[in-house]
C-alpha cells in the first residue's frame, strides 16, 4: 500500500509540473506580462484547469479504492446468521421513508428475511456522513435479531444506542406492533404500539435506530407478508 501512496505523490508532483508550464518563476511572469492576457480569461482558465486536475485525480483514486459494499454486507451476514442466503430481493423497488434507505434485502433458506436498513439520523449533521446502518432479521412476523452494522455516533454518547443491551429490546417483538405512519411526519405519537425506550443523552441516535427498524419492517410488509 505504501508504494501506492508514494506513487501517488510522484505523479502528484509531476502532474503539477507538467500541468503548469512554469519551469522557472521568472519566465512565466515575463510571459504573462508580455502577452497581457485579459484578466477574466485568466480567471476562467486557471479555475477550470485546477478543477479538471482535481476531478481527474479524484476519479482515478476513487476507481482504485472502490469497495464493494454488498460484499461487505454479505460477509457480515454470513458471520451473523447460520443458514444460507437463497434469494436477494431487488432493493430499488422498495419505497421507504425519506432519510432512510434499504441497502440490501435477503431471504435465507429457512425463510428468515434479512434486511439492512440505513437511517440518516444521528447526533451530528455536518459530520455525520455515514448515518446509522443496522441489520434486522425477521422470521415469521417476529423480529428475531437487530444488530448494528456501521455508525458514526460519538463514542460514549450516541454510540450507547447501538450497543447490544439496547438493541435486544427489539427481539421477539411482533412486526404488527411496530407503528408505520404513512404521512410525512414520522414522529406522530404511537399509542398501543411498541414504544422503544430512549437512552438519555442519545435521543437523536435512539430515534435513528427506531426509524431504521421502522423502515425495515415497512420493507418487510411491502413484500406482502
Amino acid at each position: 500500500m505504501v508504494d501506492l501512496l508514494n506513487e501517488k505523490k510522484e505523479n502528484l508532483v509531476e502532474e503539477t509540473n507538467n500541468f503548469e508550464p512554469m519551469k522557472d518563476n521568472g519566465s512565466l511572469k515575463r510571459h504573462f506580462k508580455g502577452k497581457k492576457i485579459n484578466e477574466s480569461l485568466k480567471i476562467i482558465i486557471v479555475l477550470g484547469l485546477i478543477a479538471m486536475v482535481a476531478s481527474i485525480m479524484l476519479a482515478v483514486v476513487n476507481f482504485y479504492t472502490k469497495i464493494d459494499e454488498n460484499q461487505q454486507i454479505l460477509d457480515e451476514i454470513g458471520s451473523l446468521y447460520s443458514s444460507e442466503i437463497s434469494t436477494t430481493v431487488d432493493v430499488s423497488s422498495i419505497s421507504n421513508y425519506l432519510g432512510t434507505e434499504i441497502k440490501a434485502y435477503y431471504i435465507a433458506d429457512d425463510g428468515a428475511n434479512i434486511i439492512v436498513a440505513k437511517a440518516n439520523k444521528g447526533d451530528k449533521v455536518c459530520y455525520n456522513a455515514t448515518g446509522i446502518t443496522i441489520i434486522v432479521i425477521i422470521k415469521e412476523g417476529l423480529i428475531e435479531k437487530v444488530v448494528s452494522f456501521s455508525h458514526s455516533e460519538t463514542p460514549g454518547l450516541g454510540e450507547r444506542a447501538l450497543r447490544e443491551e439496547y438493541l435486544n429490546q427489539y427481539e421477539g417483538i411482533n412486526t404488527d406492533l411496530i407503528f408505520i405512519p404513512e404521512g410525512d411526519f414520522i414522529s406522530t405519537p404511537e399509542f398501543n404500539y411498541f414504544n422503544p425506550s430512549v437512552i438519555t443523552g442519545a435521543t437523536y441516535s435512539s430515534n435513528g435506530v427506531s426509524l431504521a427498524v421502522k423502515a425495515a419492517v415497512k420493507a418487510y410488509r411491502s413484500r406482502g407478508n
Partner: protein
Amino acid sequence: MIEKTEKLTFKDITSPFTNGIINNNATFRLVLGTCPTLAITTSASNGIGMGLSVLFVLVCANAIVSILRNIIPRKVRIPAYILIIATFSTIVEMVVRAFLPDLYDKLGLFLPLIVVNCILLARVESFASLNRVIPSIMDGIGIGLGFTFSITLIGIVREFLGAGSFFGIPINSIISAELPMTFFILPAGGFMVYGFLMVIFNSVVDKIQKSLENRNRVNLGSRSVNAHISTPEIDTQGGK
C-alpha cells in the same frame, strides 16, 4: 514575504515551524478550527486522529498552493484554494477507507470534516499564498502539530471529566464513584473547557515570554535608553 531571489536562511525555514506550535497555536492563539475542535474532542484518541489528518492535508495543500501562488489570480483565489483542500481531504478519505479499514473506523468520521476546518483556508490564504514552498511546508507542519497538541489536550480533559476514562481506558475508581458528568461531553461543556484551557495556555506562554524578556533586560545592564524590547503586555507606557 520572502521573494524568489533571496537565499533561504535557516531562520526562514524554522521560524514558521516553531511559530506554529507556540506563538500562533491555531486553537488557542488564532482561535481557528473551533467547529471540529468542539465536535470531536469528546475523546483524546479522536483528537490525535483528527490532528494528524489535518496535518497531512494542511502540508499538502500548503505545498501546492505555494507552488501555484503566482498563477492563481487574486480574484478567484478562494475557490481555487478550496478546491485544492477539498481534493486532498477526499483523496485521504478514499485511500484510508480502502487500505486502512481499522484507522478508517476510528477516524473515518472526521476526514470529510477537514474541508470545513477554518484552519486550512486561513493558513493557506495568509501564509502559503505569500511565501515560498519550504517555509509553507514548515508552517503547515508547525500549525498541524500545534493543532494536534491542543485538541488532544482538550480531548484528555473532556474525556477525563466527562467519561471518566483516559485515552479510552476507563478509570474504574471514578466511574464507580458516579463522578463523570456527561455535561463535559456535551458541546456546552466543550465551550467551557475550551475557554478555561485557553486562559491557562495563554498565561503559561505569556509567563515564559516575560521570563525571556527579563533575562534579556537583565543582561543588558544599564538602563540604556530604549535599548530593551518593549514587552507586548498592555501597560507599555513606561509602567515601571
